[in-house]
Structure formats: structure tokens, C-alpha cells
């Protein structure tokens, strides 16, 4: 069940109404209902993989409690390893096994050996990367002593399986979610308004921005870069940048909105990343819940920035390598992660150099926009690596970028779709508006009467219905 589908349009209001009826009467029944609804939501994709969620839930619930009860360091460590082994074992088996085996086979063949290790061809369970990281953070925080176990298995199961964030994040921390579950939260009028706002805004990003720009500009280009010259390639690359942002930020916003309407506050995942003024800042605005997860559980344990510059760069590279691999099992994701790490290292080094030289950062509009332009494009550089299925296609992307002149795009006689270009401009304008007027827009929205919000919503839904001839799955479902 996708957020941008008719079944969800029926599912969510039904859940909302039942949740409303239950929340004042029986908190436990409410949690149970939300949990069942969440599992139902997941089962719409493939009920067989509910089993994995249940395994992860049971193991981390038991391990979390056991760690909390045990004061011995060795026992606590052993229990943590159990959780890591089970969670990462499942993730590794379903997501990475084939990649590593195929890589090993290639290596063996290159050495003249028989590279015939068996591959499993398993389906990647939707959301496994997300809920695995959630349950891991729960156990690790208890192991660190910064979190107490959930009060009940039901609370914990709801933390793992809460449907708005189950399949594509945001990656919620137990410390954010469990206190809310225990409080039996209710949505205020402001929550309802803001929830609707987040859903509409997220759907607009997904259905109008991401899907249309993707269809008009990005998919065509990345599908066959040989047909395009420089302009077509740039349109495709810009298009994918906004497609990816619209798709994932849109999903996250819908998730936040759904949670909010049900009374739960989920963390935002994106803060206008394309308005960042440095490469470091980009990653403080992009997929925030993953990046902070990586920071807290990989970068800082490696030593963070506390062990000298060289180690800091090493830690940045390792963390970004993990971030790349988290996105997918493929050499392109490995390279993508490393290139991102290198650009962050460069950005950090450059900031240090400027600081040593005593360069004072100016805040005038010219400087601000110059930096935004620069770092948006720095962020853009590795994106084709992320998008292309193999290195050969990546090479074609590079060749398209240097194809210029009267013969550019010789096999791309169609013009760059005007609608796509218009939508790119719209997406950019929305990003700027959100950066400077985001709070004002929300404030105005919340000040509207519910009737006006309803009218606005129905108009937007009409727009979504008109422009979406086909429902396009969310990109991040594949991770």
C-alpha cells in the first residue's frame, strides 16, 4: 500500500476515525489497534515478510530487557552482539548476500578459480533497512544506559511497526517515540491542521514534482543517456536531483503528517537541503534521521573529530561508505558513498583553511547564493553514480555531458519537455519559499478554517488525480 494510492486514501481515514474512538476510551486497545493496522498496512505489500518484523521485534524486546536487567559488562556486551547478529544478519541476508557472493564469484573468476558460489535471489523486504536501524538504536541506547526499555511489549512493537514510518522512515529513535506511546497522545486542532498540511505538501512533492519531473526529464535521460547532449543531460541530472528530493522528502512529510494526525510527532527528515551553504550543511539537511543515526552509531564510536584531522577524515569516509552501502547492495552505492565522503572531507578541509586564514564568512545575498549554487552542484556530482545501474551507463552519462554543438543529442530529436523544465523552476521556487517563508506558510495554513483547508485539499487531490496517470512507487522503498 503506497501513500499515493487510493487504498491508502481509504485506509488512513478509517484508521484515524477508529483511533479517535479508541484513544479516549482505552489506551491499550488503541495501541493494539494501531499495531494491527500497521501490520495490515505492511502485509498489503507482502504478508510473508511480517515474520521478519516480528523476529526483529521479539529479539530486541527480549534483548533490551535482558541488557537492562544485567549489570555485568560481559553479559551486556554478549546480549548486544545477539541483537546485532540477528538484525544485521537478517539485513545482510536479504539485502547484501547476493551482492557479496556475486562479487566473490567475480573475484574468484578473475583469479582463474571456479566462481560458482550460489546466490539466493531473495526479494528485498520493504522497509527492512529502516526498521532494522530503529530496533538497533533501541538496543544500543539501552546498552549505553541512555534509555530504559519500553514499558510493554505492545509499546515496543508499535515503535517498530508504526505504519507511517515503517517502510521508508523517518528512522525514529525510541527516545523520541516511546514517551509519546506511553502518554497516549491525542492530536490537537493544530496537529490536525499541520498533519493535513504535511500530507498535502508531501503528496505535492511526490506526485507533481518528483513523478512528473522524473518522467519528463530524469527517467528518459538515465534510461538511455546516449540519446542526449549536454542540455538534455543537465536537464536529466537536475531533474533527478529534484525527483529524488521530491520523492523522499515527500514520503517523509506524508509520514510525519500521518503521525501527527494520529497524535504522534515523528522527526522531520529534510530541511531544504538544496539551500545549504556548505557540503557539511547539506548533510545536516538531507535524510537527517539516517545521517544522525550514522553519526551516533558509527562516526562518533569511531572517534568522531576528537582524534586529530587525519582520523576525522578517515571516520568521515568510513561513515559515508556505510551510508552508501545502506542505500543498496551495489558497487555504485559504494562509490557514491565514498565520493560523498570525499566531498565532505574537502568541504571540511576548506572550512578549516579559511578559518586559519582568518577569512570571515560574509552573509550578503551574493555570497549566500554563490555558496548555495556551488554546494548544490557539489552535491549533484555523485548523484549520477547513485542513479545509474552500472558503470557503463555512468560512462554514457559522462559522454552525454561533453556532447555539445549542432550534433548534440543527435538521437534525441524531441525537445526537452517544457513541462519538466517548468516544474523544475516550480520546485526550485518552492524550495526557496520554504527556506524563507516555511513557517509563515504553515502559520497561514493553520489559521485557515477547516472548511477552507478541506476545499484546498480536495482541489489538490484533484490535481494529483489529474497528473498521475500511473502510480509511481517511492524510490526509497527499494532501500
Amino acid at each position, binding site marked *: 500500500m503506497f501513500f499515493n494510492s487510493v487504498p491508502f486514501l481509504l485506509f488512513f481515514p478509517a484508521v484515524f476515525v477508529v483511533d479517535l474512538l479508541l484513544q479516549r476510551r482505552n489506551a491499550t486497545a488503541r495501541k493494539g489497534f494501531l499495531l494491527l493496522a500497521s501490520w495490515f498496512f505492511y502485509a498489503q505489500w507482502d504478508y510473508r515478510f511480517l515474520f521478519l518484523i516480528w523476529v526483529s521485534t521479539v529479539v530486541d524486546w527480549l534483548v533490551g530487557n535482558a541488557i537492562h536487567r544485567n549489570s555485568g559488562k560481559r553479559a551486556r556486551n554478549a546480549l548486544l552482539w545477539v541483537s546485532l547478529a540477528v538484525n544485521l544478519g537478517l539485513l545482510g541476508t536479504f539485502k547484501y548476500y547476493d551482492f557479496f557472493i556475486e562479487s566473490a564469484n567475480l573475484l574468484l573468476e578473475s583469479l582463474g578459480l571456479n566462481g560458482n558460489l550460489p546466490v539466493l535471489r531473495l526479494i528485498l523486504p520493504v522497509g527492512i533497512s529502516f526498521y532494522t536501524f530503529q530496533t538497533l538504536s533501541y538496543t544500543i541506547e539501552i546498552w549505553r544506559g541512555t534509555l530504559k526499555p519500553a514499558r510493554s511489549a505492545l509499546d515496543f512493537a508499535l515503535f517498530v511497526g508504526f505504519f507511517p514510518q515503517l517502510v521508508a522512515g523517518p528512522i525514529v529513535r525510541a527516545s*523520541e517515540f516511546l514517551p509519546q506511546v506511553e502518554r497516549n497522545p*491525542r*492530536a*490537537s*486542532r*493544530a*496537529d*490536525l*491542521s*499541520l498533519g493535513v498540511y*504535511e500530507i498535502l505538501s508531501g503528496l505535492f512533492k511526490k506526485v507533481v514534482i518528483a513523478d512528473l519531473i522524473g518522467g*519528463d526529464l530524469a527517467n528518459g535521460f538515465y534510461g538511455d543517456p*546516449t*540519446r542526449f547532449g549536454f542540455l538534455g543531460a543537465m536537464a536529466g541530472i537536475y531533474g533527478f536531483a529534484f525527483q529524488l528530493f521530491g520523492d523522499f522528502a515527500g514520503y517523509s512529510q506524508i509520514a*510525519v503528517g500521518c503521525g*501527527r494526525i494520529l497524535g504522534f*510527532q*515523528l*522527526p*522531520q527528515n529534510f*530541511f531544504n537541503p538544496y539551500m545549504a551553504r556548505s557540503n*557539511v*550543511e547539506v*548533510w*545536516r*539537511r538531507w535524510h*537527517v*534521521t539516517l*545521517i*544522525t543515526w550514522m*553519526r551516533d552509531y558509527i562516526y*562518533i564510536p569511531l572517534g568522531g*573529530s576528537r582524534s586529530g584531522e587525519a582520523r576525522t577524515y578517515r*571516520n*568521515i569516509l568510513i561513515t559515508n561508505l556505510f551510508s552508501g552501502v545502506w542505500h543498496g547492495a551495489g558497487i555504485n552505492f559504494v562509490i557514491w558513498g565514498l565520493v560523498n565522503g570525499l566531498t565532505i572531507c574537502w568541504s571540511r578541509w576548506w572550512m578549516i583553511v579559511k578559518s586559519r586564514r582568518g577569512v570571515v564568512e560574509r552573509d550578503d545575498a551574493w555570497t549566500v547564493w554563490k555558496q548555495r549554487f556551488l554546494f548544490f552542484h557539489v552535491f549533484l556530482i555523485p548523484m549520477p553514480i547513485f542513479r545509474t545501474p552500472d558503470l557503463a551507463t555512468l560512462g554514457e552519462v559522462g559522454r552525454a555531458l561533453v556532447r555539445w554543438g549542432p550534433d548534440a543529442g543527435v*538521437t534525441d*530529436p*524531441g525537445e526537452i*519537455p*517544457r*513541462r519538466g523544465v517548468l516544474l523544475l523552476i516550480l520546485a526550485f521556487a518552492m524550495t526557496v519559499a520554504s527556506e524563507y517563508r516555511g513557517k509563515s506558510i504553515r*502559520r497561514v495554513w*493553520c*489559521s485557515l478554517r*477547516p*472548511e*477552507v*483547508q*478541506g*476545499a*484546498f*485539499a*480536495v482541489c489538490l*487531490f*484533484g*490535481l494529483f*488525480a*489529474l*497528473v498521475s*496517470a500511473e502510480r509511481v512507487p517511492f524510490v526509497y522503498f527499494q532501500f
Partner: protein
Amino acid sequence: MSDASHPAAPAVPSAADGADTQAEPRAFAFLARFLLGAVVAAALANVLAAALGQRWLGAETPSQLERNGLSLSILAEFAAAERADVAFAGSSVTRNAVVPELLEDALATALAERGSAGAEPRAWNLGYPGGTPQLARYFAERVFREGHPRVFVLEAAPFLWDSTRPGREGAETYWRWMSEPPETLTAAATGSLPYTFVPDAVKGLNWGMEMLWNPRHPDSWRAARPDGNGITPRGGRYPAAWCAPGVWDPSRDDAQWEENFQRGVERVSELATSPEWRTELDRIAVACAEKGIELVLVMPPLYAPLVERMPPGALAEMRAWMGAAADRHGFRLIDLEADSTWAYTRAEFRDALHLNPAGAADFSRRIAVEVLAPLLADG
């Protein structure tokens, strides 16, 4: 990456952005008022759409016809056009083979050479992927009018017209598509679509979107699709610009060639002249005769390796049957497949069934000069 505390805006959105979170939740009241606004807006959108009365407001359904490129606005423009000399109907073979703009240029030149200088012939390609004889009959009976078009060129490749033949894979889907268009087609073709309640309550927004994207052509935003759907004003898959020498690189089709060829082989292996086709052709011939439209049945040139894989005798049987039908109704049957000078090679096909832009350009020019010009000059 920094281990400093997260500098971005608060991770949990603050309700203070909007309004007071301490207010007593009145969710049901909110929901009721929200729904009231939604229903009123939907009703108003309907009234607005009805008042606007644009023919495409209602016609712009997400029908399969639209998606596959036979835009209803093309049909509407055809029906409303002052002049329509030639209309092609057929399957995706026709849609890929005829470039109206090129055909018109070649036809104008050929007519000038025959003494009809200054003629500005107008051609339309109403070919449709998965097209059926029922659809062609529908055109003949309901969309065409007296002498409009002057010549109706009907694709005579029955095995390509068998989308609804019982037993064919996807036949039910094709039936569903075909059952969809009559009302909207009629309305679009006559330009007087009666407004009925639109289930999609905000259909009127379509108007605003169309005008926003291109006030001149209501179909423009669909036209912008990279696969070229509806991109030409009078139908067909390829804009004339794609057909210029050297523009289309045939090697781009290489990757899918073998797979597409096998699909074509599967199609011709179940070759049959369906009873529906025979019935519909009779009705098409009658309708054309009544409206003074010259009906021409054209067997398009086929990819030779594909023909070799047809069931033995099937093509001959088809020819015999079509010949008999032509004699019975008095229409012309032109068998380009049997004419070796029309044989196209892989360089002109984008797959085993469909011509690429280079092939379409050649086909359009030649059929204009060799087939249509004599007909129109005589008429």
C-alpha cells in the same frame, strides 16, 4: 559530518509554527468541517466545469486511447477541420508508419506535378496501438462525414487487427479499452460534449492546468511526454523533425531488437483472419460508400524475416479474402507487401513490426506520391 549537536531546525516540528497545541482536541468537529469544505469545493468545481463547457473538460478522461497517443483532441480537430483529404486508420503499424506533415508535403508536390498546384492537402493519422476493426468502423460510421475525409486508408493486416480476438493474450483488456471511447469520441468529434457530473470532482482544474502550460494547444502537456505520445497535431508517433536524415540512430533499437522480434514471431504464429474483422470491414465499406469516402485497403510492407515465419498459406488466404471483399464492395486493395520495391530492411524498422522514423518518412512520401496523388488528382 560533525559530532556537534544537530544544527538544523528542530527535529520534531513545532506545533507553535501554527497554532496552540494546548487546545482541547476537537477532532471530530474538525473532521466534519474539513469534509464539508471538501464537498462544497468539489460541487463548485463541477459547476465551474459545467459552465466552462469546454469539450475536452469532460473528454479528457484518462482513457487508454489518450494514453496511447490517439488524443481525443486530435479526433476533435479532425472532425472540426475544414479540410481532410486523407485519414489513415489502423494499428500501431499505421501509427508508426505515417507522418502526416511529410505526407502532406509530398502530396502537395505530387499534386502540383499533376496540375493541382496550390493544393494544401491535409492528412491525419488515426492509427492506434492495439487498434481494432471496431474502432475503425466507429470512425467510419460516427466520426467521418460526407467526403470528410476524401480518402480513408485502412490498414489491411488482419493479424495486427486482432486485439480483441478471443483467445489472444490481453483480449479482455483491449475490449475494455474499446468499450470506453464511443461516448467521449462522439462528443469530442462533434465538439459538443454534453456535460455530465464528473466523478473526479475537480475536473475543472484541468482547464487551468492546460492554459497554464500552453494556452495555444490543450494537449501540449501530454505532448511533452518523451515517448512522443500525441506529439504531432494530426496524429502519428513521430514528429517530422525526427525523420530528418541522420536524426534517428537505428542502433538505439538494437538492444530490444531480438526480444521484439520474438514477440512479433509469436504474433504472426497465431495469424488468423478473425470473423470480427470480416464483419467490420463490410460495415466500414458500407459507411464509406454512403458518405462518398474513397476507401482504400492497404497491406503495409512487412519485415521479411517475420513473413517467413507466418503459417504457410495464411497470407495467401488473407489476400484472397480481402480481394473478394474489395470486389464485392468496390474499394481498392493495394498490396504493398507483395511489391518488392516496398520491401524495407532492418534499417527502416525499429522492431519487427513497426517502422522507425526513417522508414516512416520514406513510407509517408512514397504512399503520398504513388498511391494517394493519383487518387486525389483523379477525384
